[in-house]
């Protein structure tokens, strides 16, 4: 089938709308964030070039470093706890135990509920007076351990971070798709050689779904970096900025009409994200050899 003149016109016409939207909402915004991070800008008057000043300011701000640290803890938690748990469950459910489809449905459920509704649910769990968690503690005789989970500087950040780590459905489904593509003859051969179940998972499953694991780790890191809703709702960064993250930090700067500073923070977020993706790809590429 030859490309006719009409086809050529059609291709241009059909690519144009998508290209326009991507240009306006992805490419130009990213470039503008980069450029205006070097300007003093309040969103009202004209931006004024100020060199590295915005960066110098955020780098000397304790809240920025606290937020960055929290984001990195979040990335680590997602990559080192959530993804491995998802991997274990993917292996378990791939053996197709009775009712595995129902469990898959259940594990995946939190993924379709909005982050804000899930956060509201957990605010009810952590509620200081009549929440589920304090209620459970009292029920088992640990009434002394009850506390205002989200108001206590010691527990606030762990509480906001931890609940999402055990929602493993999304990564589990990606990994299960990877496992279902593995040729069964590998396992048959290994069984004949007398390999144990664990050995098979370690030496056959994991290496063969390496690419799916990489995808999960990358996504986990990207999601961890763009965390916002649950903190905005549950703690708004408090108490004493203990639970701030970069997106919340830049949101607050924007609120204070410091657009230049907000964009410098955005740049740090975009650069960290890019760096993390490159590092993850490197890590998994090395193992390939």
């Amino acid at each position, binding site marked *: *089938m030859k*490309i*006719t003149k*009409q*086809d050529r*016109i*059609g*291709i241009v016409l*059909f690519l144009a709308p*998508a*290209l326009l*939207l*991507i240009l*306006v*909402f*992805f490419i130009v*915004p990213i470039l*503008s964030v980069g450029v*205006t991070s070097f300007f003093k800008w309040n*969103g009202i008057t004209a931006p004024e070039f100020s060199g590295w000043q915005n960066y110098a300011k955020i780098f000397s701000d304790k809240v920025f470093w606290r937020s960055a640290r929290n984001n990195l803890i979040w990335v680590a938690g997602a990559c080192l706890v959530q993804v491995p748990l998802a991997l274990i469950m993917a292996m*378990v459910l791939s053996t*197709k*135990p009775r009712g595995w489809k129902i*469990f898959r*449905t259940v594990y995946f459920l939190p*993924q*379709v*509920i*909005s*982050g*804000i*509704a899930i956060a*509201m649910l957990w605010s*009810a*769990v952590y*509620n200081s007076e*009549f929440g*589920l968690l304090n*209620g459970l503690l009292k029920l088992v005789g640990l009434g002394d351990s009850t506390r205002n989970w989200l108001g206590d500087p010691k527990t606030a950040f762990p509480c906001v971070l931890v609940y999402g780590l*055990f929602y493993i*459905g999304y990564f589990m*489904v*990606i990994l299960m798709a990877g496992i279902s593509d593995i040729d069964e003859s590998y396992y*048959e051969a290994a069984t004949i050689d007398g390999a144990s*179940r664990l050995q098979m998972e370690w030496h056959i499953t994991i290496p063969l779904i390496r690419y799916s694991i990489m*995808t*999960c780790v*990358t*996504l986990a890191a*990207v999601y961890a970096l*763009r965390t*916002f*809703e649950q903190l905005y*709702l549950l703690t708004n960064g408090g108490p004493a900025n203990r639970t701030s993250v970069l*997106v919340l930090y*830049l949101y607050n700067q*924007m609120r204070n009409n410091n657009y230049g500073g*907000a964009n410098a923070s*955005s740049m740090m*977020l975009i650069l960290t994200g890019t760096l993390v993706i490159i590092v993850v790809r490197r890590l998994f590429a090395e193992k390939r050899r």
Partner: protein
Amino acid sequence: MEGIVKGKAGNSASGVLCLILKWVIILLFAVYTLFPLLWLLITSLKTNAEYFNNPFSFPAVPQFQNYINAFSQANLGQMIWNSVTVAVIATAANVFVAAMASYAISRFDFKGKEIFFAIFSAGVMVPLNALMVPYFTIFSRIGLLDSMNALRILYTAIGLPIAVIIIRGFMDSLPREIEEAAYIDGCGFFGRFFQIILPLSKTGLITAATFQFITCWNEFVYANLLTSSPQNKTIQIGIRYFTNQFTTDYVSMYAAIIIAIVPSVLGYAFFQKQIISGMTSGAVKG
């Protein structure tokens, strides 16, 4: 593989232990996901007094009044309607634009088509929340701040990368011979798109649409940033209202959370296959 594993597990003592451990973790994760939801559902049907008295009791009489309270106090009906119109329009526009681009890339060999695909799909990895300032500036420049059109346009755009990945992947799986007969019969570029490729891509389009709809329905960050007046609020903004208002009326607040969750759960019940395949096919290419 199943047979082998089962056979092994059935024999030894360690096999039995393995089996028990397996079921313990399977059930633990299920309880973790479902228990808070069920607890919330039950609590939302109690009176405040019952709840304060014992957070784990069942309601003596189910208090459906809590749901009526939640609905009327926050004007949830209007917000649900807003969410529906935004999500429907943004999904239709998104899938149509993505289908056009996918058709051009998937069905024709022209120079640089993979570059176009890379430009379209790379957006999956962009931390969108970092673009608050530019999005806010764009919509204030074109005078669309605090309007639902801003959300419709933005959602159409930010869902494009994943939609193109899903739809192109599907169109690639259709054999080229399909169009050849039509081509010989003189069916042109547009005719082949509307009469052949689009109908045949139905599965792919539904997958992309389901995914996009859920994303739009659940979106909070930009709905919060770009709209402010009550008549422009979506349901996700609406449920946040309760955190500020009902500091003592817990049961109505819990009812509101359930109201916000129910549509997603129902959608999931009906479109589970599409949702799961949409979310994973997007991930595989990323």
